């Protein structure tokens, strides 16, 4: 057993296989919606998709169903954290961006008021990555690599606090409906309006918000613009894996995106994972996010 438990949450987009390979645990947030009969369905925002499949979930969003998301509960933190603390492990928790979820605030309070008292010999570090999806996910993977290499818990945590804004997101959505319904992305009212074919480009800004930094006309233009933005800010692509989180994108869109990236930027490898239910639930079917290490993000959405 690893001395350090590395823990994420529902927004980290790590598949069961990746979590197993890297020995990463996660705390589950909650999602709920009304089914066809009007009955409320509430379930954990699981990255194993055992209650509702990835495809059914995003088809449901596309059909106009609004999904409500809720932060990690105290009960869930107790369950996950204590599982590792009881096993004698220290904990590094890399949460969802504090701008997107209050989970991290609750975790910080619980550590201070509860876990540090109940487990005075354990070390617990929390990193607010100001990011989500595979930016958060790839930090978790990197954290495991660092721990394996013998880096101390506090050094891993301070490394991410220093470098968290170098984890870049460039994402675009297929359709504005889910985005507008959920209202979770920062942008002025005039930015969206009643627009056919307008595709916002979403970055994770310097304070951790998903921010619609610009818009493009048409899906293809948006995808190509994403590649351009990756190219503009990526640093040392040949030394890193580019992660793509996707929410039931059309295969031809993914092909176009990946083909263009391969043509333009020499990443060591490109890997695709399914986008999780929390962020995907606010951006909708067809969302595609690109995650990589690049120049420090300085933009703050207004």
């Amino acid at each position, binding site marked *: 057993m690893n001395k350090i438990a590395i823990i994420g949450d529902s927004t980290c987009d790590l598949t069961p296989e990746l979590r197993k390979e890297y020995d990463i645990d996660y705390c589950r947030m909650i999602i709920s919606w009304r089914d066809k009969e009007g009955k409320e369905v509430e379930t954990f925002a699981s990255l194993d998709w055992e209650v509702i499949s990835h495809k059914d979930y995003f088809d449901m969003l596309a059909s106009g169903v609004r999904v409500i998301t809720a932060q990690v509960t105290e009960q869930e933190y107790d369950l996950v954290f204590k599982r590792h603390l009881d096993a004698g492990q220290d904990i590094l928790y890399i949460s969802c961006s504090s701008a997107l979820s209050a989970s991290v605030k609750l975790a910080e309070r619980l550590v201070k008021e509860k876990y540090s008292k109940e487990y005075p010999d354990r070390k617990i570090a929390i990193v607010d990555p100001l990011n989500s999806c595979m930016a958060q996910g790839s930090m978790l993977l990197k954290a495991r690599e660092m721990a394996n290499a013998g880096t101390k818990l506090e050094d891993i945590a301070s490394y991410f606090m220093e470098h968290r804004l170098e984890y870049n997101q460039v994402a675009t959505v297929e359709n504005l409906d889910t985005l507008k319904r959920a209202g979770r992305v920062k942008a*002025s009212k*005039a*930015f969206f*309006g*009643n*627009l*056919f*074919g*307008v595709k916002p480009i979403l970055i994770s800004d310097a304070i951790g918000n998903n921010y619609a930094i*610009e*818009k493009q*006309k*048409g*899906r*293809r*233009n948006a995808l190509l613009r994403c590649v351009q933005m990756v190219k503009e800010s990526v640093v040392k692509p040949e030394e890193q894996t580019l992660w793509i989180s996707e929410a039931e994108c059309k295969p031809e869109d993914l092909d176009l995106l990946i083909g263009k990236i391969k043509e333009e930027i020499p990443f060591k490898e490109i890997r695709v994972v399914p986008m999780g239910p929390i962020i995907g639930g606010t951006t909708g079917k067809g969302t595609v996010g690109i995650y990589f290490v690049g120049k420090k993000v300085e933009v703050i959405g*207004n």
Partner: protein
Amino acid sequence: MVLKTLNGESFKALVSNGAKNLRLNYEEVDNLNVFPVPDGDTGTNMCRTIENGVNTIAKLDEKRIGVLGKELSSGMLLGARGNSGVILSQIFRGICKGLSGKSEVNAVELGEAYKLGVKQAYGAVVTPVEGTILTVFREATEYACKHINEESTINEFYELHLKQALKTLKNTKELLPVLKEADVIDSGGAGYVYIVKGIVRYLDGDEIELELSKEEDSSNSAAPIDFSAFGPDDVIQFGYCTEFILRLQSSKVDIDSFDIQTIIDVLNGDDIKGDSIVALKDDSIVKVHVHTKDPGKVLDHMRDYGEFLTIKVENMALQHNEQMDEDEREAKKQKVHKKYAVVAVAQGKGIKEQFKEFGVDYIVDGAQTMNPSTEDFIRAFKSLDADNIIVFPNNKNIIMAAKQAAKLYKGAHIEVIYSTSIPQCYSALTMLDFSSDDLTLILGNFNEAIRNVVSGEITIATRDTELNGIKIHKNDFIGIVDGKLVASTKDKIDCLEKLISSVKDLEDKQVLTLINGEDATEKDREKALELIASKFPHLEYGAIDGEQSVYHFFVAIE
């Protein structure tokens, strides 16, 4: 009547008769339209332009031709609408420059003034096109000047001018291929010929009895004022609308080199804190419009440069009730200072609403056969409190008037976008985003959107003709893509299909927006969308109820 010389009085009579003759014949000029679409408006535009000038001098009892000419010229400049109207206003501006300072002129002097008209008009157009009003006016002027001498009468000058104008007008068809193909003569040239004919008619003793239509002229109209709008306990809030004409004095400034910016700076300065400033200089005449809470200071300062010819000061609390049309009143009510404001020309209730939703601050009404005038744009600019105003003219024939207004208005930095259609404007507005706060980038994005969009229009042919190798029957539907005729069919939806199919690189396009007009029924719209979904499945599409007249559909393909 034979005139050896021309003075203010007789010049006024000549030009008025010219304007009246155009008024009698403007519909015929409207119909001289290359496209068989019911949007011909050259006659109307030129008519309104010259009438605005004539109305300005109507009550002026001025014998000196130079002084009269100046008033005529500035009236026309502000009233100018449509490209031909703007060119006409520039022609008269040049002529009147040539008449400046004179009491009366003989035929040779008149000819010299006309030559300045040629120079002014050609200078005002970025790329002068031969085969238009420019050619008609230039050749007529050159011909008349060549054949007169000191002994010639004014009558002879205008007869020669008319003779050549008629000849050149006929020849415009040979100079411009589009005219030849459509088998029409140039409409602007034809409008000009009617004006000259009117002048010659007057000289032949035939004064036309006709009441010219009056433009709403705020300075002359004596609408009853409701004094109750400013009571004994009210505080001056809007300030005073202060307008005056100043004669620069050579004892105070060097008139030729005097820069109007000096006055604008003073009006903008801390002492006066003016806004909505419009200042124009024409030789020694300076016309100013400014809103200020302290008009006394304006009057004091301005005497540093000259003496007043006229002054008008009105409490804007009263003025507000009187002179603003509904749009303007609404715009003023919500007047907040903005860094960027957008003015767009549009017609159709749905389009106007959509544009406002997109963030357009002021819509200039641009009905198909009534192009807005320079003054309409200035009114729009005045109603806005913005550092930068971006203008979408949305019609080739409106761009010049917008640009002329941009030059005249000094209260804000104005950028006129070269948008020639509603779909272009629609597309640019969907990309509207001022968050970069970088004007170059903002304009670049607009221009890129416009470059990227293909504009389609579907309307009904007004006559039989052949264009672009396509036979057109009156009352058939015709499809126009970026100004080119591409389809003519009996059925509207067929026409739409042909139109979309004709778009170059259609497979690279991604988004189609259908803007249906007031003549397109619910059924038409359904059929159109069905067509797009089935025949062009790769396009993402949506529809807007534009409610525009004339055009059954606008289509933006991006």
